[in-house]
């Protein structure tokens, strides 16, 4: 069994393996966080304010408030990945459903869907997310505050809305081309129902294309979430990588390591996702070429 896994991994290049490794590490960190760390990420180390990496047991150092960056990052992995996975998962599912359906039925429904997708896509991701967050997560009264959970929810919601047309469009395009293939007509000529054709003939062919873009979308979402934090409307209180970055930016001149580490984490994750997405796309292209 073990040998089989190693054998099947051997066909991938080293960058791909490193990407897989990194994604597995952060995924495990996110899932097993309570087992990995029992230290309070918000503990303040008053004796070690703004110390550099590898000082007094603080692996990545502390910031000017005395927070341990490593512990914060470990803790932030959870929310960062949660936001990305939910936004891409839910957004991708909704987008694919809409895209596949509209691509299959065509006609007026498809025209409307296409226009709506195009309209949403014409707004830059970040501006759209920013606008949605600004509308949905601000208190009408200046003095009242918005709860953190509502803020998190709104961030996820707005990023989901950003993802829907991106993946929806891919699904629609793939459906348009696959539903024109001869085997769909052939299935029809054997008396297959539309639902059978959709689920058994179209979805299995469309899904890989969506998957490839979904990995890229995870990267997009993580970057967008970090950007929202920098703009002050993201996840609050240093609870995600972007938020740690945003909190550290004020002291950039004194404690630059505070922003280096979240940046490295975000960059590695985005690069890894892109790499995996590319691998999926390439294997698709190979398959296409063989047909």
């Amino acid at each position, binding site marked *: 069994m073990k040998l089989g896994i190693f054998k099947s991994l051997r066909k991938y290049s080293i960058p791909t393996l490193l990407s897989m490794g990194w994604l597995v590490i952060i995924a495990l960190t996110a899932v097993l966080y309570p087992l990995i760390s029992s230290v309070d990420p918000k503990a303040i180390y008053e004796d070690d304010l703004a110390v550099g990496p590898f000082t007094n047991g603080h692996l990545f150092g502390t910031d000017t408030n005395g927070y341990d960056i490593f512990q914060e990052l470990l803790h932030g992995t959870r929310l960062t990945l949660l936001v990305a996975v939910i936004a891409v998962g839910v957004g991708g599912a909704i987008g694919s459903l809409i895209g596949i359906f509209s691509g299959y039925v065509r006609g007026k429904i498809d025209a409307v869907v296409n226009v709506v997708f195009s309209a949403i896509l014409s707004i830059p991701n970040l501006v759209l997310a920013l606008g949605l967050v600004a509308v949905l997560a601000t208190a009408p009264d200046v003095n009242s505050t918005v709860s953190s959970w509502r803020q998190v929810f709104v961030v996820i919601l707005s990023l989901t809305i950003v993802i829907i047309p991106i993946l929806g469009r891919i699904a629609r395009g793939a459906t348009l081309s696959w539903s024109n293939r001869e085997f769909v*007509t*052939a299935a029809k000529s054997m*008396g*297959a129902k539309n639902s059978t054709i959709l689920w058994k003939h179209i979805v*299995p*062919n469309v899904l890989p294309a969506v998957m490839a873009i979904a990995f890229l979308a995870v990267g997009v979402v993580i970057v967008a979430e970090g950007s929202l934090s920098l703009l002050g409307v993201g996840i609050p209180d240093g609870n995600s990588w972007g938020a740690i970055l945003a909190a550290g930016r004020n002291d950039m001149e004194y404690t630059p390591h505070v922003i280096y580490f979240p940046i490295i984490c975000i960059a590695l994750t985005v690069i890894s996702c892109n790499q995996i997405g590319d691998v999926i796309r390439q294997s698709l292209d190979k398959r296409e070429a063989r047909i």
Partner: protein
Amino acid sequence: MSNLAPMLSLRDFSVSFDTARGPLYAVRNVNIDVADGESLGIVGESGSGKTVLSRGAMGLLPKRAAHRSGTVVYDDHDLSQVPRKELREYWGTGMAMIFQDPMTALNPVRKIGSQLTEGLRIRLQMSKTDAQARGIELLTRVRIPDPEAVMEKYPFQLSGGMRQRVMIAIALACKPRLLFADEPTTALDVTVQAQVMQLLSELRHEMGMSMVIVTHDLGVVAGHTDRIAVMYAGEVVEIAPTKQLFANMQMPYTEALMKSIPRLDAPSGLRLPVISGRLPDPTQPETGCSFASRCPYVTDKCRAEAPPLVEISPGHSYRCWFPIGGSR
């Protein structure tokens, strides 16, 4: 040929498509009958409307783009009046189709077995094990070696000839009474072509079904059909029992098609005769004979007036003012 009511009967059957340049008439006023157990060949060059005719008769054309008129009577049911949803009842069990290109007519991500048994499970409500057994039997029937293994393979693992056999097996799965074979051998090597045609003929006799073979190659249908209809520019220009057609063709287009078949006994170095010119623009209605622009025997009458379909002997009709056999 039997004298019973035909199994499939097309009357004034026309198909047109909407294009940017106006309606495109792909099939025009075709009248064809297919008797029970009969094998009919439809021959014509690319663009003559033979594929559209067969798909249109089955009702497989996209409903938005294609407009059909005339009637399609299958087994006393006028299919042109049957709503699309109920048409499905006829597909697979009543009529089935073998598709032109076995490379694209199979779903690349599903195993042969699951595609083959799909029709059995949906249309005949067979259980999984029954369908599996029947699938293996069908593959054996189309002479596929080691059918159990092929059931578990994906289309890309099979050769073109094997895939075409699988296509035939899929089309035959629900024991259709009428089989449309749309260029069943075009994508295959010449050596495999003969095998596949032979196989189709044998299966037709075994299962007692009617067959419509659509092809551009007169040689392919010569030995395997009872009657041949020659199509040009969406019209049937000559229809006759196979032997009659080869012995006594009337329409210059049929003659031209015949002459452009490569012959083994022709002296070497001789150029293969081709039909010069091209099909008339299907968006522009013709005033005269549709073949007038390419016909070697064309006269002013041909250009001015379209010839009607004339019956010369029982079952042999043609469209020509000056038939080859007649006075010219």
